């Protein structure tokens, strides 16, 4: 499951904080890389359904943190 966070909408620090929080989940892997306009996170889990659910939760968490800090990093 691939998440593509647009740099104009998500804070990289928020994504890192969310990844830090989710890192302890068992049997789940996160691979983070950067593209010109996006932060990209690959989520792998024991099943596709589980990967999708974790990806959704991770994205919500990152969005919440981004909004709480007032938007993307400057």
């Amino acid at each position, binding site marked *: 499951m691939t998440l*593509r966070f*647009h740099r*104009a*909408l*998500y804070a990289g620090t928020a994504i890192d904080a969310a990844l830090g929080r989710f890192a302890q989940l068992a049997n789940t892997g996160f691979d983070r890389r950067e593209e010109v306009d996006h932060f990209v996170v690959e989520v792998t889990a024991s099943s596709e359904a589980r990967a999708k659910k974790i990806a*959704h*939760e991770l*994205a*919500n968490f990152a*969005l*919440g943190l*981004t*909004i709480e800090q007032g*938007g993307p990093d400057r």
Partner: protein
Amino acid sequence: MSESLLGMPPARVLADLGEGCVILTVDASMYPQHAVYAAAYCFIARCYVWLDRAEPEAFRVVLTAKQPTDAEGLRALAGEFSNELLASAWRREITRLNRGLIESVTMQAFGGAMGPPSLDDLEAFDFSDEPFDDPLGIAQSWEDKYRKPKPGAETGAETGAAVAAETDPQGGAAT
């Protein structure tokens, strides 16, 4: 597979019943990014919210229900999000226009409720906190702190009313 929802313009709102999500295209020239954030924040407890910038002048908002839902459930989600988005955009503009009045009342409310700090409060105060909080006005210059107020400029409320009097009456009446 995307499909339109009853009563929703297909160019702006599409649903994917298989994924249990609704996809909104939001005109960035009408809805500033902070309004999208404000609306999104209200919904992250109820559904999964995904933001993207599919084209330069539009946001793409994907709302995925946390529990299985039907077309009616997705339609309600899209409709409520749109209402919240409109309210957030308008609220931001109103807050900008009425900033003086809102700030003066809010600051007085907190100043009135908190009162001056006690010695215990000062002892517990974190002076390394940023930005520098100055409860006793120590950082203020003597001139700023004790200068005589200008006539007619005693309170925020007075300023607010005076400003309002200069406001075009249509602004208050015609919306």
